[in-house]
Every structure is written in structure tokens, then in C-alpha cells.
């Protein structure tokens, strides 16, 4: 086997390895990327892309990201784009430098690109822009043989409009080749133009020079963030109602994190096991004492949205869902659009539920979900769930200026004393705070007076103190 073939095989092998690494270490990251935006098939939506630069890579990036919903697709696309970038790099560097140096450069590029995928805010637009920069230069070079500065500048402008920072790659490749060909009079021209274009970009795209230069976004190589991956994984499994998996994930941790503890207890609450399971936890995390605001991470906001929806407090669930929406990519989060639709179906606000249905009807992935949740043609199973949820809604007329969960739980129980989940959360919160007298008073008010004694060992033990 020749050296050349070995080199090529090494690039492909590295891409395969990167695919496996992405899948094993980062599959939930890819899923969350998909959840954190929404791609809709609408002429109006497509036209929005035209108002910013990098239209092609942003559009393609968002288009491809919608398929990250499916397992393997995200890692496959990321690894494939890296491999294609390597192929285009090979086409360029192999002609310019000696074989050894070219191999080192290309291998370095591949490794750097792989590690940029580990950035927590990574978007696939970045890889598309890299690939487009390399590809467009190679096509340009083939057409114009690096001759004539005017066609090069024209190409640069097109590359900027279609792929943002890809123009810098184009300009650098042009400059390197010019230097190599000893065209010292022109080698600097394209990099200079590449730095000037974003100044004028301000006029059209109404953002800062820095943003215009790096659009859509540049990433630095990073190490895999296993903590974030775990956080995404437990939230995702809860989203798919894989409750056994959530439980398994939470208990296999050496120490439950606050987030995994809250998800674990939400699962137990739905199984009517919250008071039974809470005893075995060293520091039980219920979620009742968690406060969210504009400084909270998106994971916490998402989590609290699930939590309030479970309890039946639609006002707080909607607040958290809109908060998550606000802090998502382009302020559109498909999970939250679905949740907002559910919330408004529960509250009977048909007009607004229909708005979200209309958005989801225009997606490839969620159109069936939208059909099932259309308030005018509600699926039988969905309707049953919604009606069940509606029974436990907060019907109090109060105004809150904080997210004090005790008040919320009491209002929920006053609205419907049969809300066992809210009852368990109230009583368990009393106990983990060590407030036995409050627990007894709450137990008396919501269990004894209502004739709904809840004979769980944890409660019996606390009542006997």
C-alpha cells in the first residue's frame, strides 16, 4: 500500500473514530441542539435567512439540525462534514506543500475540527462554513488558476454572503498560494479585503464588526463536557418518558446531582412512590426550593418547566417555557413550543394552542404531533391526558411575586385536594426542611380534614414524633 493511500485511510479512520466518539460521548448534545431551535417549512421563514449573512450555511445548518432528533444522525453529519473538509484541505495543501508537511497540516485541521464539536454551544453551521470556505476556494482556483484579483474579490463577496467567515479561509488560502507562487504584490490583497467586507456588512446586517467578521460563529477546540452530557441525557430520557432509564441513570451516580435528584423524584412522584423513595436519599432534591430567573442556566429552566407542569401549575410552567424560549437559539425552542401548546390545551386557551400547532404543522419531525394536538381534532389519547391534567390546575386567584413553591403547592391542593403529587411534594418538603410541626399541620389540613389520609411509612413515622 502506498503512503498516499495510508494517509487517506488515516483521515477516514479518524473520521470514523470521531463519529463513534461523538455518538458515545455527545449524542444527547446533538439531540439538545435539535430541541433548541425549530426549522419550519415556510416561505416567510426562508426569507428571514436573507436578512443576515452566511445565508447558505445557516440555512443548511438549521435544515440538517432538525434531523438530529434521530439517533446517530448528528454524529454522522458532523463526522461527514469534517471528512469532507479534510478532503478539500487535501486537495489544496497537497499541491502546495511537501507531502509530509501537508499531511501534518491536514491531520491537525481534522483534530482541531473534531475538538471544536465538543464546545457546548457548537452549531453545525460552523463546520458547513469551514467546508464551504475550502470548497469554494478549490472551485475558484480551478476556474481562475489563482489569476486575476477581480474574480477573487468577487468570489470572496459571494462566499461572505453565503457562508460568513468562510471568506477568511478563502482569503488565507489565496494568500498562501500567492506567497508560494511568489506573487508578493497581490498576496495581501484578499486578506485585506476580507477584513474590510464586514465593515460594509454592518450596513446590511446591522450587527457589530466583530460579529460580522466571525458570523455565524467561531469555536475553539474544547474537551468533552461529560457533566453537560449527563444533564442533557437525563432531561432527554425524561422527555421521552423513559422513566426506568431516568431512575437508573440517577441512582448509578455516586452522588445524585440536584438535577438528577429532581428528575428521579419526579419519576417517583408519578409512580406514587415519592415518600417511599425519599428516605433512601442522603440529600433529597425535590425542586420545591429551586428558584429560576434570567441568570439560571437553560437546563434549570427546562427542568422547572417539567416540574411545574407535573404539579399542575400552568402559570409557572408557561413562565418557565417562555423563559426557555427566550434563551434558546434564535429564541425558538421546539420542546418549549410543544410544551406551550400542551399548557394552553390544559388551560383551554384554544386560540394560542392553535398558534403553536400551526408552527409545528410546518415541521418535518413534529407534524404528526401537531395533528394529534390540534385542539379542534384532538387525538383521543391526548384529550384524555389533557382532561386529566386539567383537573389538577391551579384555580386560585392570587398574584405571586416570587416562585415560593409552598404557596404554589397549597394553592394547588386548595384547588383540588386530590392532587396527590402536590400533596407529596408539600409534605416531603416539610420533612426535608425538618419542619415536623408544619408537616403535621399540613397533614392535618390536607389529609385528615379532607378525609384523604395518606398512610405512607414516612408520614406515619413523622406523625408519631
Amino acid at each position, binding site marked *: 500500500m502506498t503512503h498516499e493511500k495510508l494517509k487517506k485511510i488515516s483521515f477516514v479512520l479518524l473520521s470514523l473514530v470521531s463519529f463513534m466518539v461523538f455518538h458515545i460521548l455527545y449524542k444527547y448534545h446533538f439531540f439538545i441542539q435539535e430541541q433548541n431551535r425549530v426549522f419550519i417549512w415556510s*416561505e416567510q421563514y426562508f426569507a428571514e435567512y436573507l436578512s443576515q449573512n452566511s445565508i447558505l450555511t445557516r440555512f443548511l445548518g438549521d435544515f440538517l439540525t432538525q434531523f438530529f432528533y434521530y439517533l446517530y444522525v448528528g454524529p454522522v453529519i458532523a463526522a461527514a462534514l469534517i471528512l469532507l473538509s479534510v478532503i478539500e484541505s487535501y486537495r489544496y495543501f497537497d499541491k502546495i506543500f511537501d507531502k509530509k508537511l501537508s499531511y501534518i497540516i491536514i491531520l491537525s485541521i481534522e483534530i482541531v475540527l473534531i475538538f471544536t464539536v465538543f464546545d457546548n454551544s457548537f452549531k453545525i453551521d460552523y463546520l458547513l462554513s469551514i467546508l464551504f470556505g475550502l470548497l469554494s476556494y478549490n472551485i475558484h482556483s480551478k476556474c481562475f488558476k489563482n489569476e486575476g484579483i477581480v474574480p477573487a474579490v468577487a468570489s470572496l463577496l459571494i462566499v461572505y454572503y453565503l457562508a460568513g467567515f468562510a471568506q477568511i479561509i478563502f482569503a488565507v488560502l489565496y494568500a498562501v498560494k500567492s506567497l508560494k507562487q511568489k506573487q508578493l504584490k497581490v498576496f495581501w490583497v484578499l486578506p485585506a479585503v476580507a477584513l474590510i467586507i464586514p465593515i460594509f456588512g454592518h450596513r446590511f446586517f*446591522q450587527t*457589530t464588526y466583530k460579529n460580522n467578521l466571525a458570523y455565524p460563529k467561531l469555536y475553539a477546540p474544547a474537551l468533552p463536557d461529560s457533566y453537560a452530557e449527563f444533564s442533557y441525557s437525563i432531561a432527554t430520557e425524561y422527555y421521552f418518558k423513559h422513566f426506568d432509564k431516568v431512575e437508573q441513570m440517577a441512582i448509578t451516580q455516586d452522588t445524585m446531582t440536584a438535577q438528577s435528584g429532581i428528575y428521579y423524584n419526579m419519576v417517583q412522584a408519578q409512580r406514587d412512590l415519592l415518600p417511599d423513595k425519599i428516605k433512601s436519599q442522603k440529600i433529597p432534591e425535590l425542586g420545591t426550593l429551586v428558584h429560576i430567573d434570567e441568570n439560571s442556566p437553560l437546563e434549570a429552566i427546562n427542568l422547572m418547566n417539567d416540574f411545574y407542569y407535573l404539579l399542575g401549575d400552568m*402559570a409557572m410552567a408557561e413562565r418557565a417555557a417562555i423563559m426557555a424560549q427566550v434563551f434558546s437559539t434564535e429564541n*425558538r425552542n421546539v420542546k418549549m413550543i410543544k410544551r406551550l401548546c400542551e399548557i394552553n390545551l390544559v388551560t383551554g386557551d384554544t386560540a394560542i394552542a392553535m398558534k403553536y400547532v400551526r408552527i409545528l404543522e410546518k415541521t418535518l419531525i413534529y407534524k404528526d404531533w401537531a395533528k394529534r394536538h390540534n385542539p379542534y381534532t384532538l387525538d383521543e389519547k391526548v384529550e384524555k391526558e389533557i382532561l386529566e391534567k386539567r383537573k389538577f390546575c391551579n384555580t386560585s*386567584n392570587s398574584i405571586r*411575586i416570587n416562585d415560593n413553591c409552598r404557596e404554589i403547592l397549597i394553592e394547588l391542593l386548595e384547588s383540588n385536594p386530590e392532587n396527590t403529587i402536590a400533596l407529596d411534594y408539600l409534605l416531603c418538603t416539610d420533612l426535608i426542611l425538618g419542619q415536623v410541626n408544619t408537616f403535621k399541620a399540613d397533614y392535618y389540613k390536607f389529609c385528615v380534614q379532607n378525609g384523604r389520609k395518606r398512610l405512607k411509612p414516612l408520614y406515619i413515622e413523622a406523625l408519631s414524633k
Partner: protein
Amino acid sequence: MKRLYLILTLFLLTFCKSNPVDVKQLDILPTIYPDYIGVSIPPNIAPLNFLVRDSCKSVLVSVAFEDKKITASSRNNHVRFDIGEWKALINNAIGNDIEITVCAEKEDGEFYQFKSFSVHVEKDSIDAYLTYRLIEPDYEVFSRLKIEQRCIENFDRKDICNHNITNNSCMNCHTFAFNNPNTSLFYVRGANGGAILNRNGMLRKLNIKTLDMASSSVYGHLSKDGRYFVFSTNVIIPGLHADAAKRMEVFDTKSDVYVADFETNEITTSPLLSDTARSETFPCFSSDGRKIFFCSAPVLKNNVNDIKNVHYDLVSIDFENGKIGSHTDTIVKAEYGDRQISVCLPAVSPDGKYLIYTEADYGTFPIWHKETELRMIDLQNGTTDSLLGVNSRNSDTYHTFSSNSKWVVFASKRDDGLYGKPYFFHIDTDGKTTKPFALPQEYPDFYDNCLKSFNIPELSKGAVPFSTKDVESVLKMESEDFIKESHK
């Protein structure tokens, strides 16, 4: 006419399977969105593109006036008119009705023609530019905000300020000096923020605050000559209703009214505008600048739920050459008979004839009150019009007049109860008003896809003479400070 017939025939032959001769006449109106059925429009408005909500595979829509007709067709339910054809037709129809006919191909391949509806083209034009803030309908948190200006004669838009140049800070309260694009003001919050005053394109960054004020300015209004800015300072507390349908409640624990003089950089007030026992807010100048209208209520005490007992009066006070008057007049009393109301957001027409305010059951944040309605006072005879044909079952508020006082724009949540959109209505010389219509969009499904509210829509005669680049530059400058002047 022959040409139109040819186009129509070609369309039907090209896109439709069935024979168009088989068109069935329906005696019902189509369901279209936005609802433009029976509305009145200014002659200079952009085409009223809309969606046909009735289930259909394709649509053909004709707009006719006398012997002139234009058509729009599509292979879905989107109706978009050619802007040139629209303008030509509308210019011929000024003062008359145009007739719109919707023909839809249903899923079964059959063609149905709905009952035609009319749209009245008023003689009065509307100011060409509309400025608004785009924000999620939850004012507690924000990200990627922008203040945008739209030419409503076509579909051009430009940002006045956006999150990219403000480091994602909050921005709000844009206001024009009675629709004058050369005199305007808006706020950018955050570390490098300030009030950005535009005078003929020259921007100044102002710190309109003195040490004793409860906050910087929140709600404000410029005098016609642009010299004075009357504003309120409000300590705002956001709250959340337990009842999800009511959503948010925002209230002030303290608010006062001040006047800033942009020539001397002085701020003045009066005990009548900053009474410690009362909350004064939502100030605005009369068109001649000789009165300040504002809302006033006893200060909220004790429990947050007491906001339901807080009702704001509409009050006025004289203002002349920078001097504040010595007594107030109550224009609308919050408590009358058995009913209690709360007045918010007064706005006076540039001709001084009308004052429109928002009426809610209680409190000071009408955008979240479903019962919120607009009311119009004839300042010449003191009568109040409850604007029955204008108001909806959801919140209608944040209104401003056009420079000719013939059109009003307001933010309405009538469509879904959550996302506010700009709606317009006409006032004729006798004070009669018309059914409001939504701001037309280039793509008819824009509002369906949009997840932002249009906040504080305000009309101006022209485009603002500055760009985001100018705002970015002025934000880097030091703010001009103001000093407090003793009561004049």
C-alpha cells in the same frame, strides 16, 4: 380587461385540475387571517396579504373596483398581491369600497367561490413608518431584543437598535415628538445605556436621572418642539397570576412624574406630580404642549394582591414655558357609580381634538388584562366614546395617533390573547371609527410563525435619520447628566 381574463384563464388551466366552470357559489364569507373583512384602510397601505383558513389546495383571489381588477393566486392558502398592481387599484378607489372575492379549490378538487367582501379605502393617508419593539410576551426576561421600523406603504424594515450593538441589553420606550421622525427618543438599559435622543439625526446619550429619583425614566413623551420630555420614574414589580389565563401582573410600588428640559439639561417636578401618597405615571403632553396628562392612584400598600384595589384617575396639569401648574384637574375619575376602573396610557391627537386612553379593571399594566379596552374622549365637548367597534375580547392598548389625527395604531392581543400585533383604525371628521385591521405583512403566515409581540407601536411621518451604526457609536460615549431644578 381582456388581459386579466387571459391571466385568470391561464392560471386556472395551469394550476387547477377541475374545470373552473364548475365553480360553486357559497353564501358564506371566507375565513381569512388577518381578518380584513369590512375594514377601512388608508390609501397608502401595503397590500393586504392574507391566509385563507378554510381548508383548500389552491386559491384565486380577485380585488375589484369598478371595471378594474387585480388577482392573486397560489397553490396553497397564501394570498399575496403584487404591490404595484395593488397601489394602482387602491389609488383609483380612494373614498370607495373595493370588492374582494375568494375562490378556493378544496381537497376534493371542487372549486368554491365564497361570498365577496368589501374593504373601504379612506381618503386620509397614514404616516408611512411604524416603530415597535419586538419582544417575547413575557416582560420578565428578554434576549435578542430589537426596536424595528417598518415602512407600512411596503414591506421594508430596518432596525433602529438591536441586541447585537447593545450587548443584549434591554431597550424600550421609543417615542416621537408627535410623529416627527427627526425628534425621537428611546432607551437602552445596561452598563453603557442611556436615553438616546435624536434631533435631526444628531444623537445624544442622556442620563435623565437625578439622585433622588426612584428610577430612571420609564414611560415618557416628547413635547411637539422636542424641548421637553415628560416622564415617569417607576419602581416596577412583576408578578404572576396563579390563574394561567391571566398570566402577568406588573405594578408600581412607587412612581412620580418629572419634566426634563433638553436645552438646559434640567429636571423639574412638582408636589402635584410626585406626591408620596400617590403613584403618578403614564404622562403625556397635550398637542399644544400647555398641559400634561397623567394617571394617578393612591400608592399600593401592604399586600401585592391589593393591586386589585388600585385604580388610576386620568388627571391633567398646566404646563407653560417649563413651568408646572399649581392645581390638577381630574378628567376621568377611576371610581364612578358602582364601577371602578383604572385609566392607563393617555395619548392626545396631534390636532388636540381627542384623547384616547386604556381602561382596565385595575392596576397599571393593561397589556395583560384581557378586559382592557380603548376609550376616546372628545376634548372639545368632553364626551367619551367606548369604541365598541374597535375593542376586542382581549387586550387593546399602547395606542398612538397618526400625524393627521385620522388614524390610530394600537397593540392588540385579539387574535390569540398572548402575542400583541399592531392594529389600525380610522377616525372620521365626525369622530366615527372603523373596524381595525392588522399591519399587513409580505408573507401572509408571518404572524402564525412569529413568536414575538409587537410592543408600543408608534407612527412617524418618515424614517428615522440614523442607523444602528450611529447608535452603536453614541453608546460608546459618556452620558450627559441632568440636574434637578427646584419647582418653578
